């Protein structure tokens, strides 16, 4: 399952929302491997959400093709095969929960797919466990916090047993604690259950935790590589109207001030380690970012 087979392949995508509008996607080619955790970054309006909506045939490209495993997204016959394989979670958790009880919402996709009730029960419980919301299963969605609601939405998608999870700015509306919980849930799904994750985000701290980062700008891919490769050049990241991860920014400032810190540092954990080493003290155990 490790990262050699292709999950999603996009070839030379061109897309416009209106006939005479500008190209939201302008020749985007990308490949997502099975089991990978990919973060997609970019300023507002760079086309990252548009790209995500091409991954499960919500949008179809004007030019170019998208393949989900062996299926072309233009192939209507396999529409539900594609949507079952590539699940999508959106930004506003309130607007993607259909039912009035958590477990019924998690079951929604399975009901649509015509899964028999006994098997459905099993899969719904399993999905709720995986997303860490099992104890809230009989509550009404509007009684939950933002992070919990977003995990309900994730459970509703995982119940389909997808191979790939596309998160379209799913942490943007959450508070820091809710965001961290969602992030951990997604990381767990990726590591333990081998679900491929495509995470579209504004938060550099989330991108740092991915295996690979794709940076988009003006409808095409500007940079691509591991987080360390992408964030190496702070000036270039800023030129694309993006932030540099806080840890990286701190290290940049320290270097300017003449302190010798490693240029490769981008995550908070690495930064803590490096600073502790500089101060000659061991890093505090349990010193968590959140």
């Amino acid at each position, binding site marked *: 399952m490790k990262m050699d087979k292709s999950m999603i392949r996009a070839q030379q995508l061109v897309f416009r929302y209106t006939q005479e509008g500008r190209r939201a996607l302008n020749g985007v080619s990308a490949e997502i491997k099975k089991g990978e955790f990919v973060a997609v970054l970019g300023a507002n309006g760079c086309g990252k959400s548009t790209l995500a909506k091409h991954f499960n045939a919500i949008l179809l490209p004007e030019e170019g093709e998208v393949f989900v495993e062996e299926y072309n997204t233009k192939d209507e016959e396999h529409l539900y095969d594609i949507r079952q394989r590539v699940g999508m979670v959106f930004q506003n958790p309130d607007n993607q929960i259909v039912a009035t009880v958590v477990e019924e919402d998690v079951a929604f996709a399975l*009901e649509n797919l015509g899964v028999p009730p006994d098997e459905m029960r099993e899969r719904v419980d399993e999905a709720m466990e995986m997303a860490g919301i099992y104890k809230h299963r009989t509550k009404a969605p509007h009684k939950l916090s933002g992070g919990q609601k977003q995990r309900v939405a994730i459970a509703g998608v995982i119940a389909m047993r997808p191979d790939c999870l596309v998160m379209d700015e799913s942490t943007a509306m959450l508070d820091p604690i809710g965001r961290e919980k969602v992030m951990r849930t997604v990381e767990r799904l990726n590591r333990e259950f081998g679900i491929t994750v495509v995470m579209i985000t504004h938060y550099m701290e989330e991108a740092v935790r991915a295996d690979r980062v794709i940076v988009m700008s003006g409808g095409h891919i500007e940079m691509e590589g591991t987080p360390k490769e992408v964030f190496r050049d702070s000036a270039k990241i800023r030129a694309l109207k993006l932030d540099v991860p806080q840890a990286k920014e701190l290290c940049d400032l320290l270097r300017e001030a003449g302190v010798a810190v490693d240029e490769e540092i981008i995550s908070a954990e690495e930064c803590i380690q490096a600073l502790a080493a500089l101060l000659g003290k061991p890093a505090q155990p349990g010193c968590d970012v959140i």
Partner: protein
Amino acid sequence: MLKDITIGQHFPGDSVIHRMDPRAKLLLTIAYIVALFLGSNPIGLALSVLFLLVAYRVSGIPVRLVGKSLRPILPIILFTAMLNLFFVPGDPIFSWWIITITWQGLYNVMVLSVRIVCLIAGTSLLTYTTSPIVLTDALERLLRPFAKLHLPVHELAMMMTIALRFIPLLIEETDKIMSAQKARGAELDSGKLTDRIRALIPVLIPLFISAFRRADELAMAMECRCYHGGEGRTRLHQLHLGANDYLLTAICAVLFVVIGGSDLLWGMLG
């Protein structure tokens, strides 16, 4: 202020009536209404009241709640009572100036009032003991045969579910918009009635726009989860008719036939 609005009037509990199959409850309620209209005589009504008292007792729902559901229709009851009291011809009991009250009028008023109260109390029992979601589910299943006639049964049930889901959200949003408009100096609670109605426009327009945006996003999220209408759909919760359901339904059915047929008995007596 908007926090006080409750959806429906579900009163959670674990009585036999709460646990009864919602389809059976729904059908029995309809049967009860029919029986009530057929059996509009003192015997029938007395039996109906008795039945309701027992049912409320069993369900553990306080009878005073009925008063709450009666309040909105109290003016209608009073109005029809007045009309019947003063304008039904017959043997006068009391006469003053142009006002004449007759025995027949008084009888009509009694029958009518008790009937309406029973009607409200009976249907309320259904909504008190059944959550709106379960009720929607029951409706969908009961109406399923009509889907063959191309009636959009599943779609209607889906719309009801979504409406129930979004009511608390929209209430919350209205509250937020009202606060936002107040913060900009809108006067929502003062002024003449026409002013107050006009002041609601800047609340309603953003609410509508946001509702449409929500609908759009929800539709996309539903598509992502392979929603394609009611065809080939299965349900997580299956409804089962148990022994209890059959027993209760049978008892109620017999009683309703007696209530409905009590007119014959009353006719023989009178």
